[in-house]
C-alpha cells in the first residue's frame, strides 16, 4: 500500500509534464471541441456554396463567397463601418478609463476605491439587452435626453437610431473591460517614478506623456483588445439602437444564416477574425500580453 503510494507520487514528481497533462486535459478537451472545432467548421463552410434552387449546401470547394465579398461595395462599407466604430469605441473608452483608473489606483482611499469598483462593475450585473433598451429610451426622439435639453432651452439632439447612438452605447457597455486592465497597469507604476519625473523638472503633462503613458500603454492595449473585439463581433446594439445605415458585419451574418446562406455568412464572419488576428499581432509587439 505504502510503496504503491510512494511510486505513484514519485512518478508525478519525476514527470512534471504528466501532472500538467492531467490538470489540463479536461479544459483542453472542451476547448478543442467547442472553440477550435467550431472555428474550423466555420472556416471550412465558408468555401461551400448553396444551391439557389433547392437551398441545399453543396460541398464543392470554391472561393465564390470571398469573391462576392470582395466585389460587393456594400459589404466593404459594412466592414469598414464595423471596424471604424469598434476603433472609435476603443479610443473613447481609453480616454474615459484613464482618469477613472488613475483615480482608483493612485488617489482613492480604501473606501472610495471599493465604491468605484462597485460602480464600474455594477452595470455588468444587469442584462445586456436591458441596458441597450434603456439607452434607446434615453436617446429616442421623445426620450430623456431631448426632454432634458428642451428643459434647459437647448435644441434637440437627434442621435437616436444613428451610428452615433451605436458608438455611444458600445462605449458605455464595454467601458468596464477597459477600466480594469488600465487600473491594473496604473497600480503597478511605483510612486517614485512619478516623483522622480517631477523632481527632474517635469510638469504633470510631461510626466504623463513621457513616463506614465509609456509604462501603462500595455494595459491600455490589453483593454482595447476587449473593447475592439467585443464591438467587432456584436450585432444586437446596431440592430436595436442603430438606424438604416448602421449595419454591422454581425447583422449581415445573422441575416444570411436566417436566409439559409450559411456559407456566405461564414465567409463574412471570417473577416473580423482576420482583423482581430492582425490586431493581436500588433498588440503582442507592443507588449500588451505582459499586462493581462
Amino acid at each position, binding site marked *: 500500500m505504502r510503496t504503491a503510494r510512494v511510486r505513484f507520487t514519485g512518478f508525478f514528481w519525476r514527470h512534471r509534464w504528466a501532472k500538467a497533462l492531467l490538470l489540463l486535459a479536461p479544459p483542453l478537451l472542451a476547448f478543442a471541441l467547442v472553440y477550435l472545432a467550431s472555428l474550423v467548421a466555420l472556416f471550412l463552410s465558408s468555401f461551400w456554396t448553396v444551391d439557389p434552387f433547392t437551398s441545399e449546401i453543396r460541398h464543392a470547394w470554391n472561393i465564390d463567397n470571398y469573391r462576392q465579398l470582395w466585389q460587393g461595395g456594400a459589404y466593404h462599407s459594412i466592414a469598414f463601418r464595423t471596424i471604424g466604430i469598434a476603433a472609435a469605441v476603443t479610443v473613447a473608452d481609453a480616454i474615459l478609463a484613464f482618469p477613472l483608473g488613475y483615480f482608483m489606483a493612485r488617489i482613492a482611499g480604501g473606501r472610495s476605491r471599493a465604491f468605484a469598483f462597485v460602480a464600474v462593475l455594477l452595470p455588468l450585473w444587469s442584462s445586456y439587452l436591458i441596458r441597450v433598451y434603456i439607452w434607446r429610451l434615453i436617446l429616442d426622439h421623445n426620450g430623456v435626453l431631448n426632454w432634458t435639453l428642451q428643459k434647459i432651452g437647448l435644441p434637440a439632439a437627434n442621435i437616436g437610431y444613428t451610428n452615433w447612438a451605436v458608438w455611444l452605447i458600445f462605449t458605455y457597455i464595454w467601458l468596464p473591460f477597459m477600466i480594469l486592465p488600465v487600473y491594473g497597469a496604473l497600480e503597478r507604476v*511605483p510612486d517614485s517614478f512619478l516623483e*522622480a519625473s517631477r523632481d527632474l523638472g517635469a510638469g504633470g503633462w510631461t510626466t504623463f506623456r513621457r513616463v506614465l503613458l509609456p509604462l501603462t500603454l500595455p494595459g491600455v492595449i490589453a483593454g482595447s483588445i476587449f473593447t475592439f473585439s467585443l464591438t467587432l463581433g456584436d450585432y444586437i446594439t446596431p440592430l436595436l439602437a442603430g438606424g438604416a445605415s448602421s449595419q454591422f458585419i454581425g447583422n449581415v451574418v445573422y441575416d444570411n444564416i436566417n436566409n439559409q446562406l450559411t456559407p456566405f455568412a461564414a465567409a463574412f464572419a471570417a473577416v473580423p477574425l482576420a482583423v482581430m488576428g492582425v490586431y493581436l499581432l500588433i498588440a503582442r509587439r507592443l507588449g500588451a500580453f505582459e499586462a493581462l
Partner: protein
Amino acid sequence: MATLAPTAADTEAAAGGAPAVRLTGIRRSYGAVVAVAGVDLAIGAGEFFTLLGPSGSGKTTTLRVIAGFERPDAGRVELQGVDVTHVAPSQRAVNTVFQDYALFPHMTVAENVEYGLRVKGMRRRDRRVRAETMLERVRLPGLGDRKPVQLSGGQRQRVALARAIVNGPPVLLLDEPLGALDLKLRQEMQIFLKALQQDLGITFVYVTHDQEEALTMSDRMAVFNEGRIEQVGTPADVYEHPQTEFVAGFVGVSNILEREGRRITIRPEKIRMSDEAAGEGEAGTIRSVVYVGMVTRYVVGLDSGGELVVVRQNLETSSQDALSEQGKRVRLSWRPEHTYEIGKEGT
C-alpha cells in the same frame, strides 16, 4: 517647459550667507500618526549633512518635505533663503536620489540621465555630451545604451546619482541610497560619494539609519527620534558628547550608568579592563563575550549596579582566550573626562 527660473534667479540674489536649506517648525502627520513633530534645521551651503534615525523617526518625511513630495501641515521650507513651502517639486532647485533608484524602465541609461535636461529643452546633441560626461564621472562609461534592468544594483545606484547631479542642483537629496547594496560595495560607495560631494562643492542631504555611515561621511548630522531632532552636531561631537539617552544608545553602544543621582555615559573603547586584584575602578563580572574579529566585546555586570559594554582590540588575544574569559572577575576604570552626563529620556 519647466524652468528653474524662480529659484535659479533668486539664488544668486539671496546667496549672501543664507543656508542652503532651512526648515522652520516643520510638522507632518498621516491621520493619527505624527511623522514629523516640529523640526527646525539649517544646513549650510556645501555641507554633507546626514539625517540619522531609526525607521519611522521622521527623517525620510523631512527629506520629502525638502524635495516637495510632502506638504508640511505647518512650518516653512527655504532653499538658499527663498521660501519654497508652496512651490511644486518640479520648480525647486533640488534633485533626489531615490531609495529604489526610480530609474525609468522604458528608457535607456542615457535617456534616464538626459531626462532632466530634455525636460528643460536642452538640444539633443548637448545633452548627449553632458550625459556621457556624467556617466564617466560615476564610472559607468559606455553603458548609455543599456536598459536599467541590464545593470547591477551598484550600477543602477550610480545611474540614479548621475541622473540627479547632471542637472547641477545646489542641493542633492539622498534617501538611503546605499541601503540595498552589500557591505563591501556600500563602503566603496561611501568613499566615492564623499569625494564626489567635495569635488562638486554642493550640499548633500543624506538620509540613513546606519550610524556608522553617518559618522563616516557627514560634516554634520541630525539624530532623529519620534519625529523630532534629538541632537545636531559633527560626528565626533554627537558620538563623544551624546546629549540624550536615545542618542547615546543609537549612535554607538548604550553605556549608561546611574551614580549618585547622575546619569553618565562612557564609550566602550574608553574603558580599561583589568584583573580584580588591580584594586582600581569598579568591580564586576564578565557576563558575555563576543569575538568580532578585529575586537572582542565584553558585557560586564557591575557590583554596584548597571552594565557596561567594553571593547578591546585583539592585539594578542585569540578567539579561544577571549571566549574563556566569561564569568571572570574584573575591574573597570575610565578617565572622568571621558564620561558625559546626559539628560533623562525625553528631556
